[in-house]
């Protein structure tokens, strides 16, 4: 499981007037129906710089959205999170542990070389390297999974055991297909260069300033726009102002208040996109800490008012969730219920009736959600006699203390987990054996890992008995407490561009239909 950080990046890029004159000319005058016009430039105000460009090793949501514009995965998710073909035009499952993918014949990298089965095989060998598997590898069965080429257009995966996460995982940004021939030959460094089969290719990049993408002439899914300019704009107010004055056409926001903040801008289409990602409170149960005692963790879980978090911190935009994100149709409801009396009793029993601990959270420019959730937790836990000290930290410091140090140098943190396109994928985060990033704060529990593995292997719908058992065990363990889903707001100038925005996203990809972005002609003449 990959962890999506609360985005990073620094510097405020004032959106330029890159194509302002051209766009004004394109919009034209007159009153009439809006129609999409092929070609032209669309400007996307991106909230954070993409700094982890090598897909298999990228664990930043702020990089995934850009990666998914440049590269393609074998499969992707539709608007209902069903797995549909992408680079693989079809697939067969001869047995529960075997998948055979047929590649599109028209898939060509942006420099003109056709995609081959070798690219797919070598891409996944990077993930499944027994010496150094990627963090993503456990979603597709780990190093015991083999991938082989049957012919130039056919690839076979063999898993050691059935996996309910396998297909969904292949749609993630980490699973996009790389031009391995060039990478293996040393002609391309995927950590600094991007070359894929996606709708756009990179024309230029100024760190922390902007990306300029142009249409990939070889794309099997050609975009409507000729250019996609992406100024990096971490500041929320800058993005709002830029949408207002037309210097950007489309932008995404983590702030649940974005619809309110954007309400005064005319000709703006605002979409609240539900995401499978969800906020969590992670308690550090490793080392000499009160949270090593499961009673203390359960008390915290019982003390938090998650409905109030949804209502106040998320402005009613998200949903209270369990281990299986509530955004998934048919998700397993959370078994956690607010019970202050039980919380007080558990704390007294554990000998911590007046517990005091610190929650650290990120200080991303303009991001208020982590702080708001932390303050609601403060209020809730104060009612059971627990004092929470909230500390906002710079992202680098937070990452070091929470995710890099072993044991983690923190009591607790509020962050969010990416749940991707498979309902059970996020479960991995509760097992340090399956999710190495969690080793600093998550207690090792072989029984829980076994339950998660069983849930992944069980046949059936979302709510299998095995999945339910795993979800309940995870919530009882309460090492990391699921809180609420994390919606994203996407807004675009409806008088300047046409856009297709998915109502439900599973891969931190607000621009999933980027190929449909196009300039708009308004008028009937």
């Amino acid at each position, binding site marked *: 499981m990959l962890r999506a950080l609360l985005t990073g990046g620094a510097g405020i890029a004032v959106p330029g007037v890159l194509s302002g004159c051209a766009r004004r000319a394109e919009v034209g005058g007159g009153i009439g129906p809006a129609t999409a016009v092929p070609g032209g430039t669309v400007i996307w105000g991106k909230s954070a710089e993409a700094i982890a460009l090598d897909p298999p090793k990228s664990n930043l949501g702020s990089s995934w959205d850009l990666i998914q514009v440049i590269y393609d995965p074998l499969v992707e998710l539709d608007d209902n999170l069903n797995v549909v073909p992408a680079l693989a035009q079809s697939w067969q499952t001869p047995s529960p542990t075997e998948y055979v993918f047929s590649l599109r014949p028209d898939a060509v990298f942006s420099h003109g070389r056709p995609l081959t089965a070798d690219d797919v095989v070598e891409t996944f060998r990077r993930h499944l390297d027994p010496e150094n598997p990627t963090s993503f590898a456990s979603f597709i069965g780990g190093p015991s999974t083999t991938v082989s080429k049957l012919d130039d257009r056919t690839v076979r995966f063999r898993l050691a055991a059935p996996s309910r996460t396998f297909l969904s995982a292949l749609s993630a940004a980490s699973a996009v297909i790389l031009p391995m021939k060039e990478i293996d030959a040393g002609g391309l460094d995927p950590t600094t260069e991007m070359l894929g089969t996606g709708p756009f290719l990179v024309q230029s990049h100024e760190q922390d300033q902007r990306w300029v993408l142009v249409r990939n002439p070889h794309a099997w899914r050609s975009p409507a726009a000729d250019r996609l300019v992406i100024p990096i704009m971490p500041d929320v107010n800058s993005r709002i102002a830029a949408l207002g004055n037309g210097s950007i056409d489309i932008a995404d926001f983590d702030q649940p208040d974005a619809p309110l903040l954007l309400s005064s801008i005319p000709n703006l289409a605002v979409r609240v996109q539900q995401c499978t990602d969800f906020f969590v409170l992670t308690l550090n149960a490793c080392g000499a800490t009160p949270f090593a005692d499961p009673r203390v963790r359960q008390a915290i879980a019982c003390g938090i008012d998650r409905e109030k978090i949804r209502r106040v911190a998320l402005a009613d935009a998200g949903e209270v969730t369990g281990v299986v994100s509530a955004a998934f149709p048919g998700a397993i409801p959370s078994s956690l219920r607010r019970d202050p009396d039980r919380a007080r009793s558990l704390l007294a029993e554990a000998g911590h009736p007046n517990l005091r601990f610190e929650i650290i959270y990120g200080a991303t420019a303009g991001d208020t959600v982590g702080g*708001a959730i932390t303050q609601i937790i403060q209020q809730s836990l104060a009612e059971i006699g627990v004092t929470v000290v*909230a500390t906002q930290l710079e992202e680098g410091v937070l990452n070091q203390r929470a995710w890099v140090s072993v044991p983690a140098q923190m009591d607790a943190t509020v962050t969010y987990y990416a749940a991707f396109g498979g309902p059970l994928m996020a479960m991995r985060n509760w097992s340090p054996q399956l999710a190495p990033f969690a080793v600093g704060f998550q207690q090792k529990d072989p029984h829980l890992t076994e339950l998660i593995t069983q849930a992944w292997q069980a046949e059936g719908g979302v709510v299998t008995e095995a999945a339910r058992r795993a979800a309940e065990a995870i919530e009882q363990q309460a090492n990391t407490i699921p809180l609420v889903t994390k919606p994203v707001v996407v807004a675009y100038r409806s008088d300047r561009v046409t856009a297709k925005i998915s109502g439900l996203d599973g891969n931190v990809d607000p621009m999933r239909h980027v190929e449909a972005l196009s300039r708009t002609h308004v008028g009937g003449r």
Partner: protein
Amino acid sequence: MTDSSTTGAPAAARPARSAPRSLRIPFRGDPLGWLGLLLLVLLVGVGILHPLLPLGDPLASVGPRVAGPSARFLLGTDELGRSLLPRVASAIGVTIVLSAIAVLVATVVGVAIGCCAAYASRRVDQLITRVTDVLFSFPTILIAVLVSVVLGPGRPAAIVAIVAVTLPTMIRVARAEALRIVELDFVTSAEVAGARLGWIVRRHLLPNMREAVIVQCTYSISLGMLVEGGISFLGLGVQAPDTSLGALVGAGRLYLTVAPSYLLIPGFVLGLAVLAFNLVGDSLRAQRREQ
């Protein structure tokens, strides 16, 4: 042993004692000074006594989110539905108290170093002067942010940041005053009479530096409030759920277009507090010049 208070030295100190007498009736004929003092008393009173006033709980989510001023919530509410009236009152106290504590520390340290510079060898004096020059060469907010990042966000970091920013000026003022005073006849007389350094500092230097230092304190507090506002605006100062005027301005910035009062009121109050301290400082300085 001879008690130095019975030597000629105390006689030389007498003129110094009369100097602060004018401060006993402050701001004579200076309405702006009175206005500043009035504002100061009002703001400090609200800031410190707000828990006793019927303003409401600054930490409780009791209303709708991001609402404008209304009969129920006079200054509106924030993004968590907390009434801004008690939060602004609490923020005034936090901002002023943090600045005052920091300036007190800076004053004690600055005066001590200033006196040392005046009395120590030329080399030590030059060293102190150069160090303060170096500190002056950095932008104020850069020093404050650096301190906050190194120490971690919170009140202690805010205090140290304000000390770091206000200390160089305080050292300069103290040193200049000390250098002026040590050249005066009554200090020379005391030295000739064999008075010890500690006695001279206590009886001559400090009383005669007092006015200049007090004036500088008022300016330092206003600068300190701006520094605290700056680092809290950036999220490096006072941490949630506590708040300060800078933190409120920072939080309200997001809602400028939909609830301008969220940003404007704390910003206005911060400006008012800075103005109050500056008016008092200006008035004290004018009095000092008249003397």
